[in-house]
């Protein structure tokens, strides 16, 4: 991904929008007792498209904004999303462009990782709650929802940053254009 000021601005708007939407909308949805973590999926998608550094910075920024909007312990979501974005980016850098099954797997497993990390940080920083099976169940359902939504979210993020994706331009160039039909 080529990071121009325009792309950075797009990513900033996307991050702000998804953080607000996560707080006011997605977190209030009830799907099998939990809610989808779309902000985390956006960070995973940016990581998969832009690499570890872009993923980590985007994750840190969106996470920090979430910490502020939720008035949670500052740094908790930032650290979690930074880790998740970095791991997604490293996958891209070491293995290559993820295939569809890989996107689903990454979406599920990294959502699970994010849910567990944030639970661990919150418990470690003084949330007065017992670690029970509910935490694991919640993380499992979240990861299933993450796996299901990984492809659509990646598709939307790709639309936003399409002009900066070097690989996609090359792929588009390699695709032969149809020859014009000669008449006569």
């Amino acid at each position, binding site marked *: 991904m080529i990071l121009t000021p325009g792309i950075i601005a797009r990513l900033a708007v996307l991050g702000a929008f998804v953080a607000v939407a996560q707080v006011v909308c997605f977190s209030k949805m009830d799907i099998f007792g939990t809610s989808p973590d779309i902000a985390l999926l956006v960070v995973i998608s940016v990581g998969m498209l832009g690499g570890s550094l872009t993923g980590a910075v985007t994750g840190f920024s969106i*996470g920090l904004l979430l910490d502020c909007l939720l008035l949670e312990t500052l*740094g908790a979501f930032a*650290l979690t999303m930074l880790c998740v974005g970095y791991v997604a980016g490293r996958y891209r850098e070491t293995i290559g462009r993820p295939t569809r099954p890989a996107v689903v797997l990454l979406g599920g497993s990294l959502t699970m990782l994010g849910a567990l990390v944030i639970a661990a940080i919150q418990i470690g*920083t003084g949330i007065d709650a017992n670690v029970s099976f509910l935490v694991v169940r919640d993380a499992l359902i979240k990861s299933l929802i993450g796996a299901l939504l990984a492809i659509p979210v990646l598709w939307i993020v790709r639309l936003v940053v399409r002009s900066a994706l070097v690989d996609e331009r090359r792929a588009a160039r390699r695709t032969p254009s149809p020859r014009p039909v000669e008449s006569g």
Partner: protein
Amino acid sequence: MYRKQVRRRRAVLLLLVAASLTLLSLYYRESTGGPLHGAQDVVSTVFSPIESGADRALKPARDLVNWFGETFDARGDKSKLEDQVADLRDQLARAQTQQQEVKELQALDQLTSGGIVPDGSDPVTARVVGRSPTVWYSTVTIDNGSGDGVRIDDPVVAAQGLAGKVTQTTPNTAQVTLITDADSAVTARVTPSGATGVVEPDVGNPNDLQLDFLERGTRIAEGQMVVTAGFSTGDLGSIFPPGIPVGEITSASVQEQQAYQRVHLEPFADLRNMDFVKVLTTHSGGGKNG
């Protein structure tokens, strides 16, 4: 070049991790009025109107998703709730039946504690277990018999008044012939006038009784109460003790009184729906039908 990139990536990553941990640590330690809390408040305040607008704008999408979830949950709860409703309905029916029975027993106790039970008698409370299926309601079966001290010709009262007399017994059950039976006849007195007569069923009308053989010249009005007379003449006496309420005068035309010495009354006892009766286990020594 590549190494430089790797070094830069690692440095940024370390910087971000360090920043996160520092924020976590400082935020956790500082008081609510600290600079980090202040910065958080500023960001939250700036985004507050955006959040408010986004909340309203995204509400339909949120409600749609929640509607699916709630519908799914509701379908899961449906069978459980149906079972609960059936269980509660069963409990309610049992409670209402018990309440009705308690009321009836209390009324029965009230009636028999009013001095109508002759000295030396021991009233036996019995449940009505069998009922004649005909429209005449002439007999019922009770769940106490000769083994409980119930004897033939014992008077039987229901919660509101006289019901009939025992006409047949087995060790565990007894048959009660009601005052609406064609063969029934009970000597009775109209209060407060004191006129006496014989209460008999009105043939062809099971809800109506008639008081026959009234003395000439007595004036009886609608609404007056009829109780058992309980006469005793030598060895001959009524099997019904005096003072048991029988019914209320419903029709007392002058013509009928003069021509037939007769008035009509409605029994107090709800003979169709009674569940409990009391058998007044006393023997006056051989009265015949009242």
